[in-house]
């Protein structure tokens, strides 16, 4: 960040505005606003205002806590949650359908939007922690989405679908790894080519294998029927799917592997200072290959969630930009699994929010659709600059 050049007052002013402390205070303010808007006697027509304010509060909190502003940050998060819940509560009071709101409301929808993002983000963390930028996540997800369906249809069981998704996501990642590790191609360029390639390959295969669309019943990743859980309205919806469990496991495992095992230590060392790792006998190339392929496998699982986990079909380019958003979550979450997951929840919340907003507020659907991106951009301002990536990320390593 030494390029932080001092462009006189403008730069300084903005920097002051983007101090974690300032942002945390802004977040708290938004949280209070959300709470206030949600509460009677102030009767807002739509649930949109408090939800949006709660979103901003959450965003600010999630952004600053891992950057050191813990106390204020947690306050912002708490108020954001309170405001959001208050808004939902208000809504249920109006609709008088408590049950239906809680079982399939904004939070469950948030989690479903976040699931594919979370898989891809965990993949992104592995790759970037080892020093390889992976904007090919999008393509790897797409591979997972297609080959998940293909495997499930071909074999008749979702298990094979998942395996195929992982296999082909991993293979595509291997190509990215080969180009960026051995051939030292620009990693962003290579990742971009990966996305193009995946678009072409999946489109090509989809058109040639299923010329009339997929008309057979696709074997789906099932829901676990843990009755005692499933009966609780909200929890049942959140934790009903096998995929949800896999996702939580992946997030926790990612953390444990990266920070509690020798493998993780090596991955991080390669991303921070490959030469240092090399001199103690760690295979830099080996670790990077492993990490990038892992990222492909995970991203593909995210894609498979979309196809055989959630909607049970494949459509061309069905990931529609989710890989890029996952990448933003990685940076937002400072390359830490827990916080990146929180960031995916945040983005998921943004998308989930668009639906009730459209329903309640009656604003143009297209305008609302820009909301997650605008809010993300707003939240990103000042935060990204402070995320310090692994020191060697993006730089090819030349063995002596």
């Amino acid at each position, binding site marked *: 960040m030494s390029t932080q050049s001092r462009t006189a007052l403008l730069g300084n002013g903005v920097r002051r505005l983007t101090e974690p402390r300032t942002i945390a205070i802004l977040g708290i303010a938004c949280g209070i606003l959300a709470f206030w808007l949600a509460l009677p006697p102030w009767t807002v027509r739509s649930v949109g205002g408090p939800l949006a304010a709660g979103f901003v509060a959450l965003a600010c909190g999630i952004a600053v806590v891992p950057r050191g502003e813990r106390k204020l940050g947690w306050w912002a998060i708490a108020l954001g949650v309170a405001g959001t819940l208050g808004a939902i509560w208000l809504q249920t009071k109006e*609709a008088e*359908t408590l049950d*239906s*709101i809680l*079982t*399939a*409301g904004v939070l*469950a*929808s948030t989690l*479903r*939007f976040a699931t594919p993002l979370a898989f891809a983000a965990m993949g992104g963390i592995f790759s970037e922690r080892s020093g390889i930028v992976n904007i090919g996540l999008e393509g790897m997800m797409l591979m997972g989405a*297609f*080959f998940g369906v*293909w495997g499930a249809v*071909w074999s008749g069981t979702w298990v094979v679908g998942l395996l195929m998704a992982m296999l*082909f996501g991993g*293979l*595509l990642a*291997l*190509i990215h790894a*080969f180009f960026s590790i*051995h051939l*030292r191609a620009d990693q962003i360029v290579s990742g971009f080519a990966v996305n193009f390639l995946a678009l072409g*390959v999946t489109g*090509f*295969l*989809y*058109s*040639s*294998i*299923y*010329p*009339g*669309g997929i*008309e*057979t*019943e696709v074997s789906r990743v099932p829901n676990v029927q843990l009755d005692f859980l499933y009966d609780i309205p909200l929890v049942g919806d959140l934790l009903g799917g096998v995929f949800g469990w896999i996702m939580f496991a992946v997030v926790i495992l990612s953390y444990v592997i990266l920070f509690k095992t020798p493998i993780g230590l090596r991955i991080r060392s390669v991303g921070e200072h490959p030469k240092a790792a090399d001199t103690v006998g760690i295979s830099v190339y080996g670790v990077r290959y492993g990490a990038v392929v892992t990222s492909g496998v995970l991203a593909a699982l995210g894609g498979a969630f*979309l196809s055989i986990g*959630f*909607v*049970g*079909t494949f*459509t*061309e*380019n*069905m990931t*529609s930009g989710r890989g890029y958003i996952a990448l933003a979550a990685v940076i937002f979450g400072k390359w830490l699994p827990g916080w990146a997951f929180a960031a995916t929840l945040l983005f998921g919340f943004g*998308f*989930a929010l668009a*639906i*009730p907003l*459209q*329903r309640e507020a009656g604003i143009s*659907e*297209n305008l609302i*659709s820009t909301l997650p991106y605008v809010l993300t951009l707003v939240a990103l301002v000042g935060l990204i600059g402070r995320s310090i990536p692994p020191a060697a990320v993006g730089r090819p390593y*030349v*063995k002596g």
Partner: protein
Amino acid sequence: MNATRKLPWLLVLLVTLVLALVAAGCGGDDDDGEAGEDTAPADTSEAPAEPAISVGMVSDTGGLDDRGFNEFSIAGFERAQEELGVDGRVYVSESGDDYLPNLTAAVDDGHDLVIAIGFLIQPSVVEVATEATDVNFAGVDQFYGEEPDCGGENQSPCTVPNVVGLQFPSEEAGYLAGIVAAGVTKTGTVSTVGGIKIPPVDNWIAGFRQGVKDTNPDIKLLNAYSQDFVDAAKCKEIALDQISQGSDVVFQVAGQCGLGALDAAGEKGVYAIGVDADQSFAGPQVITSALKPLELAVFETIRSAVDGTFQGGTNRFFGIEEYPDAELLAPFTDAVPADVQAAVEEATQAMINGEIDPPATFD
């Protein structure tokens, strides 16, 4: 030097990978593909006589497998190839930029009849047809006005002597679907998931809403758009939201995206109604599907060109009045009770008689 020395093996590996990626996917398909290649020429050689006429189909954007305008319009063309022995080919538009060049190419390739699919392509059709006066055109989902109600602000394009507009009052099928929905709902709330807010989408929804209201004015109606025709996850979330709002019948009008809405209904154990074609493959929750006689319209248009009855400078309607035999709803499942089926039957008759005329737009 080290890295480059190892390259040969990695190169081999890489090429193998790329090929594996493709080959693996194609494995199951090879037979179909080759079979198709083999039979296509055979077909033409066995064709009885000279092809009657040659037809160029210019698609809308969204791909040929869109299970919507494109796929079923082209199905009509394929039927004409088989039954009428016509010749011709399809021009795919990937984006709006392709409309003009595709139409121009279709004219230049010497087709006698050019069928353009989709209402957004209409201005391009007018432009090309005005120049290529010796070729006949038909526009699916297009309407051509008569003087003086055309051409100006806020009006449809005027008729062109060699162009026929093919019109589908989708609100009729939507109306019947609405009756079904009103008949099977238990919660008193039904909903629609639209793709992008354009007339061909809104026609369905308008009819549907009217059908529901006419059956039971107390039923609550929900409607939302996904702004997307491909992202099935989005439509599924919207449908789930509507179901959480109490809807127990979901009518999708969102192309491939809408398959997600059907899936949501299946998952939540409520009813769904498909669109365009019989979408019962999505599961038993799909109690029926509202149909648009695209295949029929295209086939009929081609037939008129073959037997010389093609008449340009006008519109052809493929509504229930013109084609009372056309199926508007796919076969019901057992979930639709007999009285509802009877109500549908009754409304169909009323529409044929002109007693009911569902609106094409809604607020």
